[in-house]
């Protein structure tokens, strides 16, 4: 037994080394940094002194950070169901159809996922600029007003649109693969019993997709908490609030304001929050 354990560790070493160096160590360092606050005397450089939980206390009272979290929840509640709903619909449609056309559709839907997020966001940035946007040109052709996609009231939805565009195809492929795994005798039995297509979808396919959907849901929720690139790329094109996403807010705290201690505390809090949300779900799925 012990010999096997040694061998197991030997095989795990490459993973563990990378996991520790690039995951656990940075988390540990962030935790360490988050315990220090900056004290200034005069106009000179600050002294880093041990502050205990001072950064955490500041964070839970920081309305900008809390509003960032609120944005994240609004985003999650609106975008995740829309994206997963679309993904289910597309997966079912693809499963029903056959042939060359289906293959083209499958590739086309999946393609946005293959485009680097930053590039995708740049392209959308052009599509969103008030006067050049083809959407606005279409609206104007119908004598409607212009939409400023980057204005404070709209920009969160503009970002949600980019994320949906990127990830729907990925979720669709995963669901499509899960559909392929449904044994064909189930369909045959249902047909023999007189089930219509809609009955098959409702009584067989959706229930059997649920485990996959749950996993995709959790991944999407975690993805929502990590939203950064789209907002970061759109920032130079207009006014995007520092706290449009919590991740952008803590990035600016570190990289712009050089306040690494506070940024560390924000990061740890955000991680704990996501653990708290996704942990129970993951446990339920794992225990099945």
């Amino acid at each position, binding site marked *: 037994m012990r010999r096997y354990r040694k061998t197991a560790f030997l095989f795990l070493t490459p993973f563990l080394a990378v996991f520790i160096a690039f995951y656990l160590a940075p988390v540990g360092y962030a935790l360490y940094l988050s315990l220090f*606050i*900056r*004290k*200034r*005397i*005069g*106009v*000179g*450089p*600050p002294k880093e002194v041990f502050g205990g939980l001072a950064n955490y206390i*500041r964070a839970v009272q920081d309305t900008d950070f809390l509003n960032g979290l609120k944005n994240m929840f609004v985003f999650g509640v609106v975008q995740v169901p829309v994206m997963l709903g679309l993904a289910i619909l597309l997966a079912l449609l693809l499963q029903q159809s056959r042939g060359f056309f289906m293959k083209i559709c499958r590739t086309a839907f999946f393609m946005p996922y293959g485009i680097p997020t930053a590039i995708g966001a740049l392209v959308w940035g*052009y599509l969103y*600029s*008030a*006067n*050049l946007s083809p959407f606005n040109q279409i609206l104007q052709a119908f004598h409607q007003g212009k939409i400023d996609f980057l*204005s*404070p009231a709209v920009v969160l939805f503009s970002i949600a649109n980019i994320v949906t565009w990127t990830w729907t195809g990925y979720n669709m492929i995963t669901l499509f693969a899960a559909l392929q795994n449904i044994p064909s005798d189930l369909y045959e039995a249902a047909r023999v019993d007189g089930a219509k297509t809609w009955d098959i979808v409702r009584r067989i396919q959706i229930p059997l997709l649920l485990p996959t959907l749950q996993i995709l849901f959790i991944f999407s929720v975690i993805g929502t908490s990590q939203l950064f690139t789209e907002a970061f790329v759109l920032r*130079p*094109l*207009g*006014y995007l*609030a*520092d706290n449009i996403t919590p991740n952008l807010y803590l990035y*600016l705290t*570190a*990289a*712009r*304001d*050089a*306040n*690494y201690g506070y940024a560390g505390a924000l990061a740890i809090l955000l991680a704990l929050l996501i653990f708290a949300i996704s942990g129970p779900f993951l446990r339920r799925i794992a225990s099945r």
Partner: protein
Amino acid sequence: MNNPITWRSFLPSPASRPSFPVLFWAIAGYVCCQLIPTVGAESAYQEPDYSKLKPESGPITLEVWTWVVGLDKAARLFEQAYPDIKVHVNNVGGGPSEYQKVQTAIKAGSGGPDVAQIEYDFLPSFIATEGLTDLSKYGAADVKSFFVPWTWGQVSPDEKAVYGIPQDSGPMAFLYNKKIFDQYGLTVPTTWDEFAKQAEKLAQATGGKVKLVDFPPTHAPWFISLAWANGAELFKAQGDSWTQSLNSPACEKVLDFWADLIKKKYVATIPDFTAEFYNAVGSGQIAGSIEAAWGPGVLAASLNDKTSGEWQVAPLPQWSKDQPFRAGNWGGSCDVVLKQSKYPKAATLFCVWLNAAKGPVLSNWTSYGIFPASSSGLASPDLNQPDKNPSKFCGGQNVAQVYSDASKAVNVDFAWSPWFAFANDDYNKQIAALISGSVTAKQALDAWQEDSLKNAAADGYDVKGK
């Protein structure tokens, strides 16, 4: 002006009383030199004595981070002059994207460059990290006289330590499309009053289709340069504490003026440096732009020479005809040496040479529109190259002359603060509210002042509003 014949040579010897002719010629000679500065300057492009800046011995490679396109060509010239020093130029992205990398490298203690380009407004936030070398330790204080005084004030805020060598500057002027101005019979405004009248005239003549200029809603330093020209000073370090005055009457007067033009839709509010902005300028929807010295070059390149030759540069409009001419500055940057550099002496030498030597200083302007911070560079008649951008973009006009006059009219005492990076972004928030019409100019500035004070105080600065 760098006078080739020093005034001492006209002084009589102490033993003799000067006779009338001697004094006459002395005064006449002095006056002549004052009257024909270009002739004097041409023969006297003064450069520091680089031999006083001794690099470390042995083979050296300097890592340089910048966003100036073509700096690697200047670096090759430097390598020819100093064969022991190799220079590796790395374009890691403009402004904030570079700062965030440098900031991270300073925190990490390694991985940063030897030399980095930093804009004046962001320099204090780097000084505050204690990651920059005080170049006065390596003889940089001796080259002060070779740079435009206000640019030196930017790199040496306490007038002792020197945190960078001025590279370029961005004094402001009014760039306008002469074709559009002629078409609608507009006159070039010399005061803001006239400016507003022309904006109204153009809006009425075109049914609001063509705007006089753009008010860039996400570039605080653009607004600040105009407040600077109105005598505003935003930050001041006094002893152990700071004062901040983002909502001073001088600032309010400027923003009030623009808020009125925005409300009447006489000016556009398109974010600068975007495809949308260049499209609007290139297609004649915007007739002018208040631009820093580097602006016409950027515009010429970004428009791919579309509308080239149609433009002219005029001095910045003034608030009153009676006051002495005043200009502000937007951007401009210096080259700093990081404390983690192994070769601070060689790096200092490179920074001084790059920004004082005639070759790179002149080619930076004529090739990339980077306006010099070197006094000799500014006075050099070679700065005027009618067949090259940005002069070519302006129909061969001596653009450099307009901007060099503007540079002389920039307030020396203007200083920034370490938390400017925050204030810079917070400005966008307030202006978004101003443009949407939910706040007045005064309310926007008050909120900007308050947010920035709050941020600085949370970071431990002893700062008061003024």
